[in-house]
């Protein structure tokens, strides 16, 4: 309560001071800065508050973003979000580097069968389930045209977008809970690999959708473009990874600055060449972790800066949740989310059961594949741009489902890690219980 009163006071100060100064002519946008500062403090409080209820802190950051965002108190307005875009890029780069760095080649080799089985079933079941759901729920989607082919095109796009998850959220929860174990490893490996495959599969689906849709489309051969993008991103990721290894081996000074510079430079390159920045940095992290002995240094350096970065990233993600749209599309979005949850469970269960995974993977791993964020939003944006007739409606609905998954996903994953006993807290508790002397007769 004390902390909330303090935040209210800070909020009051922010507003009251507007009457003391008129106009802001400098290049610097002081309002964005004060807003960012307030959000960091609010996220700190919200994170602590959520942690008290055994919920992930990143959910607190997301809620902070929603509350401070343009649809509630408007402190994190669209202008401020735009000013903070550069920090968002930095956050995504650091998160992707960590995700790649956490992927161990030896573990991947060992678990390859399970990983491939789960990915295979997950992609097929979720894609088929959500596509079928959209086709069945056609009356609830007024923007669909009379043409059945276009409806199929829309349904396919929904299906493939539903398969995407959020590596950023996964890595943030793992970092926050300091989780380790089989569920953690499996979820992380699958999330990272699946996202690469989803981007490729999306290109195929988009190409099919273009042929099916009778509406006008924009853009050229998506398949070749995406293949080129993915290949170039992988290559660039290897180059960045090798550069990082060389830097650590021969210089090894000001590591944090080097990483920040690397992320900015890499992101700029990715924007310029239209590469997948997240994929590029994941590969870079993967190279450093698996082809040098410096993976731990990389991860530790990033972890030093990770908390403020996560806060900015997830608060901006929260602020991006369009509440009016969510309200308008609540019914159909809820149905889609429910179907996605069900199919995610089914796909993961089938894959892990056939691969012979231990029970905790079968029971809990699916909860790590719920969160959606940047990748799904990126795919929805491509659909919006490609199909100007129904694309914007598609994106609106996808944004609503992403919002719901963004709220549910981190909580579900934290619960999964807790129940599988892989969070640091649960491991310590188990250890303490094991060390306690057995009760006497």
């Amino acid at each position, binding site marked *: 309560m004390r902390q909330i009163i303090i935040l209210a006071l800070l909020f009051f100060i922010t507003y009251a001071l507007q009457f003391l100064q008129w106009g802001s002519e400098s*290049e610097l946008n002081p*309002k964005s*800065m004060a807003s960012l500062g307030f959000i960091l403090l609010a996220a700190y409080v919200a994170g602590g508050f959520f942690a008290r209820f055994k919920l992930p802190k990143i959910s607190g950051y997301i809620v902070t973003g929603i509350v401070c965002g343009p649809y509630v108190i408007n402190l994190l307005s669209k202008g401020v979000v735009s000013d903070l875009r*550069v920090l968002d890029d930095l956050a995504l780069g650091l998160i992707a580097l960590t995700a790649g760095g956490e992927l161990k080649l030896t573990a991947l080799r060992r678990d390859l069968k399970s990983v491939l089985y789960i990915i295979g079933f997950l992609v097929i079941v979720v894609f088929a389930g959500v596509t079928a759901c959209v086709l069945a729920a056609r009356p609830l989607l007024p923007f669909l045209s009379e043409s059945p082919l276009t409806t199929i095109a829309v349904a396919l796009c929904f299906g493939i977008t539903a398969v995407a998850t959020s590596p950023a959220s996964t890595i943030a929860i793992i970092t926050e809970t300091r989780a380790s174990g089989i569920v953690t490893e499996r979820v992380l490996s699958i999330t990272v690999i699946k996202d690469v495959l989803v981007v490729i599969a999306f290109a195929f689906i988009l190409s099919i959708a273009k042929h099916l849709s009778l509406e006008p489309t924009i853009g050229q051969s998506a398949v070749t473009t995406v293949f080129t993008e993915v290949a170039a991103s992988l290559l660039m990721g290897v180059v960045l990874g090798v550069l990082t290894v060389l830097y650590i081996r021969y*210089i090894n000074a*000001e590591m944090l600055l080097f990483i920040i510079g690397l992320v*900015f430079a890499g992101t700029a390159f990715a924007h310029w060449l239209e590469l997948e920045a997240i994929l590029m940095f994941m590969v870079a992290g993967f190279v450093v972790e698996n082809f040098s002995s410096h993976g731990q240094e990389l991860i530790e350096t990033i972890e030093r800066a990770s908390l403020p970065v996560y806060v900015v990233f997830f608060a901006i993600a929260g602020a991006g949740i369009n509440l009016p749209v969510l309200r308008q599309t609540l019914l159909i979005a809820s149905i889609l989310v429910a179907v996605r949850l069900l199919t995610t469970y089914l796909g993961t269960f089938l894959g892990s059961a056939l691969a012979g995974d231990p029970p905790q993977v079968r029971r809990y791993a699916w909860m790590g594949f719920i969160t959606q964020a940047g990748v799904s939003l990126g795919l929805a944006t491509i659909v919006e741009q490609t199909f100007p007739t129904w694309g914007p409606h598609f994106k609106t609905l996808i944004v609503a489902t992403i919002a719901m998954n963004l709220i549910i996903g981190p909580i579900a994953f934290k619960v999964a890690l807790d129940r599988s006993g892989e969070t640091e807290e649960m491991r310590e508790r188990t250890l303490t219980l094991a060390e306690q002397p057995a009760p006497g007769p």
Partner: protein
Amino acid sequence: MRGIIGLIIIAVVGYLSAHFLFERLSRRFLLVSGIEYILLGVIIGPQVLNFLTPEMVTQLSPIFSLGVGWIGLLFGMQVRFRRLRRLDPAYFWITLIEAMITFVIVGGFFGLVFWYGLDGRGQWSILIPAAYVLGTTAMVTAPSAVALVKLRFRGHRYHVTHTLQHVIGFNNLLGIIVFGLLFCFIHVGETAGIRPLTAVEWINLSVILGILLGILFHLLVRREHDENELLLALIGIVVYGSGIAYYLRLSPLFLNLIVGIVLTNLSPLRRLLYEALHATERPFFIIFLIFVGAMWNINAVWGYLLVPAYILVRMGAKFLGGYLAYLSIEKKRLLVPNVGWGLLSQGGVALALVVNYQQVYQNRFTDLVVCCILVSVIINELVSPRLARDFLADLGEITLPAPDTGLQQQRPTPTSPS
């Protein structure tokens, strides 16, 4: 594409040069680290290669301003009243005399230069800030030169060295406070809906805001012991304080200094807070230095013409101030008449002051004042460690030649505690 290349240059060439070239030069010629980053900023900034475009500088301004606020907070966190009470009052007296004499002489001299030489007659709103910032940046002394000499050379009696370190610490504190008052005296912008505030009201507002933020922050984190969480909250309060200060056209350095003073005197977590701040100081400071270089308008020709005068007048004022301070104290063992040799280093605080000035006071004197101060800082950083070394060696407080102690890696940062 130019931006991309610029960023790559920051990431690769900057570190390479910083690590290899400057490290060696520093070891050999006793240089203070930091200048290389300013020069790097100049080269890739809008004035030379324009790799780091003005838009990028603007986009990254939160990090930049965080650097300014960080410096203020770090200095504030070193002002513990309980510890200050134990110090010899002579240190305060020496600082007051030396710093104020330097401020008055340099500020007054350049006030006259602007008035008569640069057609600033009667233009008080631009003349006073320009002369004032030259005065305050002349007043402050970086701890880096003396700290570097102390690190590199073996010493035995540290009477004057200790005095220098204390005086430099107070000097910077006084510099930030005096500089903060400028924003209240010559306030830019208008108030909305109410009458314009007077200078005293702006001063009160700055102090009250700083104290309020400090108390609120203390209450917010008083049960926090996780270093990462503390760092998050610290970054939050510094960015918030800096944002508010910039919004009101006050000094974020001054406001965060007060926040720091409140925190260090109130919070039982002071050690944890200081450690969290200190541990992340260097990356912030390096980014800050690169941006300082990038924002420097190197074409401000008059700025270069002012540099010799600025350096000489500052040097003269430091010597006079030091001499008068020596005359005024009873404990003569604490000081020597030519203590000015040890007070010539400028550095982090001077840069933060000039950046703060540049962000708020935009007029025809701004570029030349910024140029003059930056060149002076660079020159002083190049020569002051050697001057300080020779000065302390002459006094017999350190021994030459230097044994290779292997301490070169511990390069001091501009806010190293004195």
